[in-house]
Structures are given as C-alpha cells and as structure tokens.
C-alpha cells in the first residue's frame, strides 16, 4: 500500500502511523455529554468499502493526513492535509 502525501508525494505505507477513523476531526465539546463522547471515542461506522481515516506521516514531513481509501481493495483514493479537511 502506498499513500500520496500532498507534501512529499507517493510514499510507502511503512512511513505512516495509522490513527483510525477520521472522526477525530469532529471532536465534541467537552460538555457534549456521554453519548456524544461514546460516539466519538468508541463507536465506528467501520465501512466495508470507502472510508476516511487519519494517518500521520511519521517518517516524512510529520503532517497528519486524511486519507480516503477502500477497505475491501486497499486502494488509496485520495490524501489531503488533515488541517485542510478540518477547516
């Protein structure tokens, strides 16, 4: 698997640390309540097919990326800076 970092280009999967579902970009307010925090920390759509997840370019530029990917084929469809995705 290879991921195209917007800053570094096409790179091997080994250079990236996997964080998980891109829910981290929608962090609830501290007082949002137990349900919202359960959704955020634990519950997952866990799709078989297209998904969005967060990868950290640890052995590269150090950017957090939001990657659009297919969990069934392992095809990487798109990667953009998490900072842009969160905007």
């Amino acid at each position, binding site marked *: *698997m290879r991921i195209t970092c917007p800053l570094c280009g096409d790179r091997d*999967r*080994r250079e990236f640390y*996997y*964080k*998980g*579902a891109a829910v981290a970009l929608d962090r609830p307010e501290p007082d949002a309540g*137990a*349900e919202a925090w*359960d*959704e955020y*920390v*634990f*519950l*997952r*759509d*866990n*799709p*078989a097919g297209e*998904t969005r*997840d967060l990868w950290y370019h640890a052995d590269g530029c150090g950017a957090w990326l939001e990657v659009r990917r297919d*969990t*069934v*084929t*392992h095809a990487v469809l798109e990667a953009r800076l998490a900072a842009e995705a969160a905007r």
Partner: protein
Amino acid sequence: MRFSGLRVLREGLTGNKGWKAHWRDPAPKPEYDIVIIGGGGHGLATAYYLAREHGLRNIAVLEKGYLGGGNIGRNTTIVRANYGLPGNSEFYSHSLKLWEGLEQDLNFNVMHSQRGVINLFHSDGQRDAYARRGNAMLNQGDDAILLDRGGVRKMLPYLDFDNGRFPVRGGLYHPRGGTARHDAVAWGYARGADMRGVDLIQNCEVTGIEVKNGAVTGVQTSRGAIRAKKVGIVVAGRSSQVAAMAGMRLPIESHVLQAFVTEGLKPVIDTVVTFGMGHFYISQSDKGGLVFGGDIDMYASYAARGNLPAVEHVMEAGMALMPMIGKARVLRSWGGIMDMSPDGSPIIDKTGIEGLYLNCGWCYGGFKAVPGSGHCFAHLMATGRPHEAAAGFRLDRFRTGFGIMDEEGTGAQHNLH
C-alpha cells in the same frame, strides 16, 4: 453416526463405504425459535450448547458462505488460558476446561493437543510482568510455571539465546495450553448441533433484521424471510454491517490479521512459542508445517489479505528468535478479518432490542474462546441472564467507562489493540 475405534476398523475393512455426510443440508423453514447469524466457530458452538444444555431444538444457523470458511478456518489455532484480568481470567479458564472435555463431548477428534505454551521474556521488566501474570493464572486455578533461562534452554534449545538485542531471559510456561485443529472444531460443533436437530443453512446471507416495537421478529436473507423469536449476531469481522441492519453502531473496527505456514518438516517445535520482543508466535502442525503469525496489519481492512510490511515484521521476528527457521520455505499465507474492540476484550451481551443478542469483539484471540463463548452465549440467549464466566463482557462498558478490560494496559482506544 458415532465414531469409535471399532467403527474405523470396520470401515477400513469394508472399503470405507459406510461413512455418511456429517450434517444435513436443509432448506430454511419460515420460522424458528432462535436464529444464529454466522456459521463460524462461535455461531456453531452457540447452536450446539443451546441444543445440548438448554434442550432447545427449533434453531437455525444462517451462514452466508460455507461452514468453517471464516476465521475459524484461518487462525493459528493457539488455545490457552493465560489472561490476567478479572473478567477475562475466569472466562478463558472456563473455556479451557470445556476444551479438555470437548472431544469426548462431541465424539469428534478436534486434535486438541496440550503441548504447552511458552511466552518468552527478554528483560527484567518483562520477567516481572510474566511473574505477575503467572500468579494471576494460578489464582484462577490454572497452571503456570516461571522458567529461567536454563529451564527454557532445556525445552527450546534452538532459540538464539544470546541475540545481541533480544537475549532470552526466560519464559512463562503454561503446560495446559496448546493447539487444536481449527476446521475440526467447526465440523465437530456443526455435527453435534445437526444431530440435535439444529438446521445449518449455508449460502444464506442475512440482509436485514426485522424489528417491531423494539423487539426482533426475524431476518431477511438471500433465501427469503425467516421469522424468529430470538436472534444472535455472531459474525466476527462483519459485526458492524450486520448490527447496522438493526440500526446499531458498534465499538468495533475490522482489521486484517495474516498467518503463514511452511512446507511440512520433521518434528522440530513441540510446543507453542511466543516471542516477547516482536509480534511472533509459532507452533508445528501435525502435518509438519510450521504455523506462525504476528500482529494485525494496523489499518481498517476487509480484504482478507494483508500487506508486505506486516509479512516482513513477522519474518524478521522469527529469524531473530530462531534463526533455524530461515531454512524452511513458506508455502502459503492468508488473512482473516478481525473484529477489534477498543479494549481488546470481547462482547457477549443483550442489545437495546428485545430478543436481539450480540457476540463479537474477539480480536485475534477468539479461537481458544470458541467453547466458552458458545456455552456462555447460549446461556444468555436461553435464560436471559449472563453466564457468570462471561458477565464482564458487557456492551455498555465503553459508554459508562465501568468494567473496561484492557489486558495489554495500553488504553481502551481503537488503534492500540
């Protein structure tokens, strides 16, 4: 049809013409008392114990593929009861005791072999952790022996004891641990369930779950609608999709775990050995192949095949631990879809929907759990009360924060198990 030595002898002398299919191939009936979704190890064991322990008969297991085609037929077959946390300890202890009587109970040879499991340690800190774990196992009534370097050397002379980075300092030996033949476990439970009247329905994919007024009423399948008073979801890596049919979101991420087997060799590794400084575990199958594996690939996946970095890690760890295996040629590798929970422990519980039950979150450790899980899930589905050995496997522990069972002690977070 009972198996016995006499029977094998008689069949051998008469051309093996008397063997029959071990289970029927029934068409689905319009209605059952209980429908189990998923014909893997856990689903089949659940159906078996529902019939055997609770006298229930009107049960169907619905399997979208063929029996034993999922993780039950893909794992590295390690059976052990060496957990350290309350909640897990009593459950795996219960499961191991069921394993010990399983072949007699099923009248089926699952090739359960208590050849021992040795978890190696390579530092003082690891020794302390394993000493503590061993004590927890003894307190649970199971067996554990802390071996020093000499003790390990006697049993596993072929290890690289003086490896520059990861010298072997000793190991935690669990004599009652071992392996079993994974397919045979599925087949044995399937046969036992079928003999007690359970309908095992293959090529039958569940596509919808019917809920009326907060209670389950049946399922939609690729072979038509089936009504049911109770439904159990036991679909391992597909748990999120099937639960979504009932409007539920689960604390589960599906990941791929790979495994490997070499060409058949003469007997060389007669226990299960796990490396403490890289993810690697190995045993030798009765056919002679070295069966080994490591960690999940570490990203959400439904591909049932993995990527090269995880393969490399496993091979490197194996070579660091026992350089002799570099001479063996790898024959095959494959992957399975694991239902990973945030704290690494499973879920056996009711849901918010009356009559709908959930069994998932087994991560990479659900093979050893098959008897215990089936037994406890059947108890829950039949009586409505959790079995005492599985009372900790609650679905709501993540929302409430009460009863999290993080065996690795890394934090109850999805990307850490």
